[in-house]
């Protein structure tokens, strides 16, 4: 078979919605795009542990503490599935970590914002996980098999997280005036960055067309963003809070909410390292990795010794 035959077989699978599996032939760019996207997604889970981890030791009740800890642990688990999915494409976890620590690989910019009050644990669950779910539900049918299967597991847990986040805010919104202010303040800070999570608008997203063709992506950034706005506005009414956008209003004709312009200058600045916590987040990850080197070396040395010992036992037995 020639490359062209392979390409045709690949295209046919994509068109027929047959999942691409690790051992199948795939175009180089498809592989590269997926490695970039899946590793970016994995890094987002791992870096995403930090802003919420910031409140584990200060959670306001034992139940909240346990739930938050379990949630952040889930994120670590998601990172693990995703790194494993990316590894099927021929890149190692260590290489991906290197790319993260050197700044070559990106992660979701939302995690470069600080978590300053307990209400942020609610807002992250409700808005940030809510926005992530919009993306991730679509990815459960992405064309690359291992990625799609990882997403199915992740989505189940994420929707649970989103409900937990909303429940934190709901509880607080039924509480005292100061708690309601805390909730509104969190919504004010997280709303716009959440909308930015869907990425640049379609006319500024050069990779979208190809990704849609490969069925890596199923919906455009703007389609998913609109869907998120439509459901979130309704949920916000239950909390009795307002979203910080004076232009937000129902458009009867379109059957959607109109919303104001996103500050793309802020978005690109945060992507490129100027967010309030970019430096701290990367430093925390790099520090954990560097401080852990001797531990990983020891674990490796020990497993090698064990192999050697059982090998010499085997040879004696023989």
């Amino acid at each position, binding site marked *: 078979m020639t490359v062209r035959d392979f390409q045709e077989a690949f295209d046919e699978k994509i068109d027929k919605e047959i999942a691409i599996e690790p051992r199948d032939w795939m175009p180089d760019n498809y592989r590269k795009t997926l490695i970039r996207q899946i590793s970016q997604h994995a890094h987002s889970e791992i870096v995403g*542990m930090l802003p919420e981890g910031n409140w584990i030791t*200060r959670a306001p009740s034992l139940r909240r503490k346990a739930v938050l*800890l379990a949630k952040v642990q889930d994120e670590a688990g998601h990172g693990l599935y995703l790194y494993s999915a990316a590894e099927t494409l021929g890149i190692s976890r260590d290489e991906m970590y290197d790319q993260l620590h050197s700044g070559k690989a990106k992660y979701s910019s939302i995690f470069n914002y600080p978590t300053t009050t*307990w209400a942020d644990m609610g807002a992250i669950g409700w808005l940030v996980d809510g926005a992530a779910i919009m993306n991730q539900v679509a990815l459960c049918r992405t064309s690359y098999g291992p990625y799609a299967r990882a997403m199915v597991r992740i989505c189940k847990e994420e929707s649970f997280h989103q409900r937990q986040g909303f429940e934190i805010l709901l509880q607080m919104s039924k509480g005292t005036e100061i*708690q309601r202010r805390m909730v509104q303040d969190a919504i004010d800070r997280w709303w716009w960055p959440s909308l930015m999570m869907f990425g640049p608008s379609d006319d500024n997203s050069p990779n979208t067309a190809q990704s849609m063709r490969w069925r890596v992506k199923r919906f455009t950034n703007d389609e998913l963003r609109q869907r998120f706005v439509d459901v979130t506005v309704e949920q916000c009414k239950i909390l009795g809070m307002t979203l910080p956008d004076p232009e937000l209003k129902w458009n009867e004709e379109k059957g959607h909410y109109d919303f104001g312009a996103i500050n793309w200058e802020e978005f690109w600045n945060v992507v490129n390292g100027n967010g309030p916590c970019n430096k701290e987040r990367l430093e925390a990850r790099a520090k954990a990795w560097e401080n*852990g080197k001797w531990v990983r070396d*020891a674990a490796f040395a020990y497993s090698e010794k064990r192999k050697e010992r059982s090998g010499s036992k085997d040879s004696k037995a023989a």
Partner: protein
Amino acid sequence: MKNQILYTLQLSDNALIYGHRLSEWCGHGPILEQDIALTNISLDYLGQARSFYQHAANLFNALPQAEKQGMFLSVALEEKIKKGESIDEDDLAYLRDGWDFRNLLITEQPNGDWATTIARAFYFDTFNYLFYTQLKKSTDLQLAAVAEKSLKEVTYHKRWSAEWVIRLGDGTNESHVKMQTALNDLWPFTGEMFRMTDAEKDMAGNAGVDTAALYDLWLQEVAAVVDEATLKMPEGAWMQDGGKNGRHSEHLGYILAELQFIQRAYPGMEW
């Protein structure tokens, strides 16, 4: 009854403070899989803490009013008690100050590096395994039930920490030195586990455990693992104590400052 409450609090405080310490690792572990494992252990201890606190709160709420007053040095708790309000698990965790906490000093020691965390876990898990094996037989059915559930968890914790002691001890030269140092540094905090308080002595034999009697077995188990890890048993007979009677290291104050921040800054609210 008072001793039963103090005894139960000792167990809940151990589990909370230790679980809290482990939770500080979340997101910063040396290996992603171990980050997850450590968080699991932390969650197990938090669960144990909650069960014990709930039991302690129930016992406390059943006391006659006169006996309730003065049991704690906490101003916030004392106010609740004066108003005739009942208390719950969160009141016990969030409204008492350090001198009301009865956890072992070893549980409040800082995480340090991975070897320090492992050494602390290893000493404490090995003890807890033996302890819960006995507490399971308690005449206090609540304590017995929590012990039975916890024993399953601690059986895993003990294996996990012992495996790490061996891996680090018998890993590289660097890890060997670090593991030995950590075992030595935490050694003076192990004696307190077996030195019984009045509440413990009062409870031993029926609802509680004679922890002094666990020492030989504990030492034997620890020594076996240390030997397999190619390490040496720490020497030194002087032991720190005080935690179980409310006399703590400087570390506990900072743990509580963080742990209790919201409840202290925004008192009386539901979260």
